[in-house]
Structure formats: C-alpha cells, structure tokens
C-alpha cells in the first residue's frame, strides 16, 4: 500500500481551479519532491492531503485514510511544517516543544523522551531557555521540524522548509530529511531550490494546478533524450543568443550565468557546426561543450510546453 495515494484530486476556489485533476502515488520511506512556480498549487495540494482543505473532487488516501472522510485520523498520522515559520517567537525553545507535545497529547514519559530527541536533532541542547526569536534561521527551521515530528508521524509534509535559510543550514536540514526517510518516514517536500530537488527519490512538477511531469530525476530528464544541450561561452552572450536562435537546428536558447544554453532539435550535437557558425558571425568562442540537462532545464522546458498548449 502506498503511503500517499492521490487520484484525480481537484480543488476550485470559486471559478479558479487551483489544483486540477492531480494523480500520483508516494511509496513508504520515499522522499517525494514537489516543484512548481509560485501559485502552481503545491501548498493547496498539501493542505488537502493534510485534511485542512476539502477537495472539490477526487480522492486522497494518506496512510490509508481518506482525507475527505476522516480528516482527524489523517492529522494524527502526519507531521506538517508550513511554508511560513510557525513557532511562537516569544516563547522559549522548551516552551514551544512542550506546547506542540500538548497539542498531540503526548504523555509525560513520552514527552521527556521526544523533547530530548527534538533538542538533539535541532542541536539546541543547553539552549532550552532561549527565546525562539533570538535563534538563527537554521536553528529555528530544525526546531520547527523537531516540533512537527514529536508524535513520530509516519508521513511528513514539508512545505518549503528551507526558505530563507543559508546553504550550510540547508544541507544540515536535508541530512535530517535523509535520516528520517532512512527510518521509513515518507516525506513529501516542496521546494524552489532545484539542487534540493535532485536529492529527492522522485519529483513531480506542477504548473497552473496540473501535474506536468513526474518521475525520478533521471526519468524527468529524459525529455531531453533527443535534444542535446550545448553550453557555449563567448565574449558577447547576448549576440550569441541571437545568432543561435537564427540557426534552424536550434530549438531555443537561454542564459545560464555567463554561459548560453542552446537546445538542439537533432539527436546528435556533433551534426551541427555551432562553433564554426558563431565564429563566422564574428564571435569569439571560448568553449563549447555538450552538457547533461539540469533539473532547471527540465523545469523550464516543461513549463514552457505546458504554457504553449
């Protein structure tokens, strides 16, 4: 039985369709990444899966429980960390832990044990009496995670957990996620950082409420199987983009830092004398290599195609 089983899930707000006929399954212990631009419908999907928002139609089973039928049952089985920082800033570390333990009705013995666990996980031992407001972003994030899993939920929803956190803290945070998944916790995580998405077992890409791609990272990159990407470094990137766009074999170009990525329509990059033509156009080519598609390429490509439809 999958941990999360979503079939034709739809949610409308008035006429606006925020989530449109979405179906997917997440297996136990899997890290499932949810990608999509702002407003794509990621949070709305998560809120339905947590029993917070009623689906307009479709079904969702979370831990085998139907979210439309037994929202409270779902809530007992899941942990959730919202997109916004959601601890009480004026309370101390310890008071926050105690409050959330109270919300989940933990017994005193269990509380003592889980409190130790949360403090250790967040690296906050010895700082129990610090006011949460004074903690740095990374600490807060780990404390929020600790508070979200005090009741040891088998399924965890993390909505943009690493927003506004420095790269080192993000790495620490992901180490915790890997660890939890290793213990069998199913994790559905949304993120705007594509390097984080690479760490997910499978990813789903959402656009305008619809699921436009799903699979392992390697699988979704298959959209570029017949379309090699060449990375060109030249003295004048903008002029190079114009020259490349003018070539019939080039599907599209985009700027990646100081380099230009060109997607070719032919399966073999060697068939197209790109460098020669650029030199003929008077540009100085510093390097030209075929690169594997990044998740960012995939993401942008899928959104472009979905938008064109």
């Amino acid at each position, binding site marked *: 039985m999958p941990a999360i089983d979503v079939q034709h899930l739809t949610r409308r707000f008035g006429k606006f369709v925020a989530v449109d006929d979405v179906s997917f399954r997440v297996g136990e212990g899997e890290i499932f990444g949810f990608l999509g631009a702002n407003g794509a419908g990621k949070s709305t999907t998560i809120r339905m899966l947590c029993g917070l928002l009623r689906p307009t139609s479709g079904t969702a089973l979370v831990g085998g429980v139907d979210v439309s039928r037994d929202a409270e049952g779902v809530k007992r089985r899941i942990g959730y960390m919202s997109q916004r920082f959601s601890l009480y800033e004026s*309370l101390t570390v310890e008071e926050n832990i105690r409050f959330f333990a109270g919300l*989940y009705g933990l017994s005193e013995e269990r509380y003592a044990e889980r409190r130790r666990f949360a403090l250790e996980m967040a690296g906050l031992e010895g700082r129990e009496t610090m006011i949460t407001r004074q903690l740095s972003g990374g600490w807060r994030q780990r404390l929020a995670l600790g508070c979200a899993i005090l009741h040891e939920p088998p399924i965890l929803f993390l909505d943009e957990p690493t927003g506004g956190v420095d790269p080192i803290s993000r790495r620490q945070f992901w180490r915790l996620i890997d660890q939890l998944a290793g213990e069998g916790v199913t994790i559905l995580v949304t993120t705007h950082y594509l390097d984080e998405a690479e760490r997910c077992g499978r990813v789903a890409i959402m656009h305008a409420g619809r699921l436009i791609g799903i699979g392992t990272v390697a699988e979704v990159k298959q959209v570029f199987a017949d379309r090699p990407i060449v990375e060109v470094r030249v003295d004048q990137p903008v002029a190079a983009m114009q020259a490349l766009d003018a070539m019939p074999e080039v599907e599209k170009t985009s700027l990646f830092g100081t380099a230009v990525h060109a997607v070719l329509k032919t399966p073999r990059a060697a068939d197209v004398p790109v460098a020669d033509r650029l030199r003929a156009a008077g540009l100085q080519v510093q390097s030209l290599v075929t690169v594997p598609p990044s998740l960012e390429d995939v993401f942008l490509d899928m959104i472009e195609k979905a938008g064109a439809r």
Partner: protein
Amino acid sequence: MRKAIAVARKELRQIARDKVTLFMLLFIPAFLLVLYGYALNFDVRHVTLAVQDRDATAESRAVVSAFVNSGYFDFTARVGGEGEIESLMDRNAVRAALVIPEGFGRRLRQAHSPTVQVIIDGDNANIANTVVGYATRILGSVSGPTVSAASTVAPPLSLETRIWYNSELRSALFLVPGLIAYIAMITAVVSTALSIVREKENGTMEQIRMAPLGPAAYVVGKSIPYFLLSLAGELLIVLVSMALFDLPMRGSWGALILVISLFLFGALGTGLFVSTVAETQQVAFQMSLLLAYLPTLMLSGFIFPISSMPQVLQIITYVVPARYFLVALRGIVLKGSALATLGVPMGAMVIYAVIVLGLASVRFARQHG
C-alpha cells in the same frame, strides 16, 4: 481537555512575556478609571459663582442659598448688572452666574412658574452641562416644579449640544459601572480578537489546525486566560473605585462576579467572532471598535441616557449587552439588588452570550473543517 489546557498555558506564557498586553489588560483599566473618575469628580465641584439678585425677596434668597449650600458652587461675587457678569467671566473670575429677575418671589407666590437665569461659561462643554444639571436639580429641590431654569450658556456651547447631553445629573459613582463595562469590552473583545488574528498572521494558526485538536479545545484554551485576566482587571477596578471614589458595594461579591462573568462570556464571544472574520490585526481592531467598543460607549446608557436618545437608537440599544450589564451592575453595586431581581438583564446577557458564542463557534468550526 488536556489539549485545551496546553493551549491556555501557552497563551498565559505569551501574555506574561508580552508586557504591553499584560499592561493593557491589568493596568490601563485602573488607569482609565482614575483618569475619568477624577476628571468627572473634581472639575465640577467648587464652580465659582456670581449672583445677581434683582428681586431681593425671601424666595430669591432661598434660591441663592440653595446654590451656595449645594456644595457644587463657591459664591464668589454679588453683581449689579449684566456687563459685570461678562467681565467676570472674561477674566475667568467666575464660571457661572445666577440671575434672579424682579418679581420672582411674587410670581412664585402666584404659582406662575417664574424663571431664573443661569449663565455658564461654555469653555468646557462637559463641565457646562454638568453644571446645568446641578442647577436644574437645585431649583427642583427649592420649590418643586414651579421654578424652571432658563440657562444661557455662552458660546462655544450650542443649543444642540445641550440637548444631546441633556441636563441629567451624573456623578462619578454613576459612571463607574459604565467604565467597568467599557473596560471589559476593551480587554476581553480586543485582546481575544487580536491574539487569535495574530496567530493567523504569524502562521502559527495553520500549524495548530494541522494538529488533531478540535476547534472547541482551541477556543476554550484560548479564552480561559483572557477570561481570568479580564475578571481580575474588573475586580481591581471595583476595589479601586471603592477606595478612591467611595463606591459603595452594597450587593454580594458572588452576584457581582456572576454578572461580570456573564458579560465577559458575551465579550469573549464577540472577540472570537471578530477573529473569524478579520484576517489582519488592524481589521480586527477596527471591527472590535465598531462592534463592541462604540456601542458600549454610546448606546449603553453609560454616557448618554437611553431615554433621551432618538427612537431608532433606543431600539438599537436593546441588542447592546452593556445596556443590561449596566442595569445589573448599578443594581448590585449601588442599590444592593439581589440576583433574583435582576432576571431580565441577566437573561438578556445570557442570550447575547449564547448567540454570539454559537455564531463564532459555527464560523470557526467551518473554517477549520
């Protein structure tokens, strides 16, 4: 229930840490009381008075001595003509003047309802109106309904304002119950509404909604601290009023606490209702002001007597819970009324509390469904 206690404990910790809220809940009420109480108490005593007795009969002298002996006026000058009064007032030597026309005594004896004139410096509209009230009452006590006061108030007090305030005598004692109602509204409605909406703004509400916690447990947990604090604040006001303004506490404390509690349930319900509608603290504050605070101030009989309001407003006052609270509170504190005699106002407060709590709970549960 354990979860409700977890919420209440968290809320109390937050309040304890939030010095501004704590201050607002406990000390602002007492501070307001002292401020209003004293302003009303002292400013209108020892009003300097000039007297022009053009009649000089036994009757006119009786009126003058009634004014002087009332304790409200300090006899300052005896004058001959209108011009003198004007110059005394311009120099702020007197605030009021009593003019008794010739023939006053004769007309009174003939039962012709004679007129005396009271001229009041209208600088401070509140004082002026209070003085009008005193004068009317004193004249009433001198000779029944036969003497009427034609009080002329120097600008800037207009005729209209006079009608608004009416000339009812209201003492600080009478105002204390009003203040208690008004302060309960501020603390209970505003603080409850703000504390819940703040959780919406901060995103902690969403986290709470993701937890297996029924709406009832949240609401109860959230209300307990504000109920206790408001009740403590109210009792503090009563004690301060007893110490500073000689407020008599003629009824039983149990009855007082019961009546205040009934009123607070309604107030907490109102705050809760506001929090289900407002998304930001600013909107919540404005709504509380409009829904709770202004009606309590204007339509409860606290400042303006209900009997002198236009018909439409009088009808509206029936849905203002403070109206009933004032009746019950004045009854218990000033008259020592027994609970049994306060069935109507208490029933009205219960009905209000049930309706508003029900409405808020339904909205709240729906938002959490």
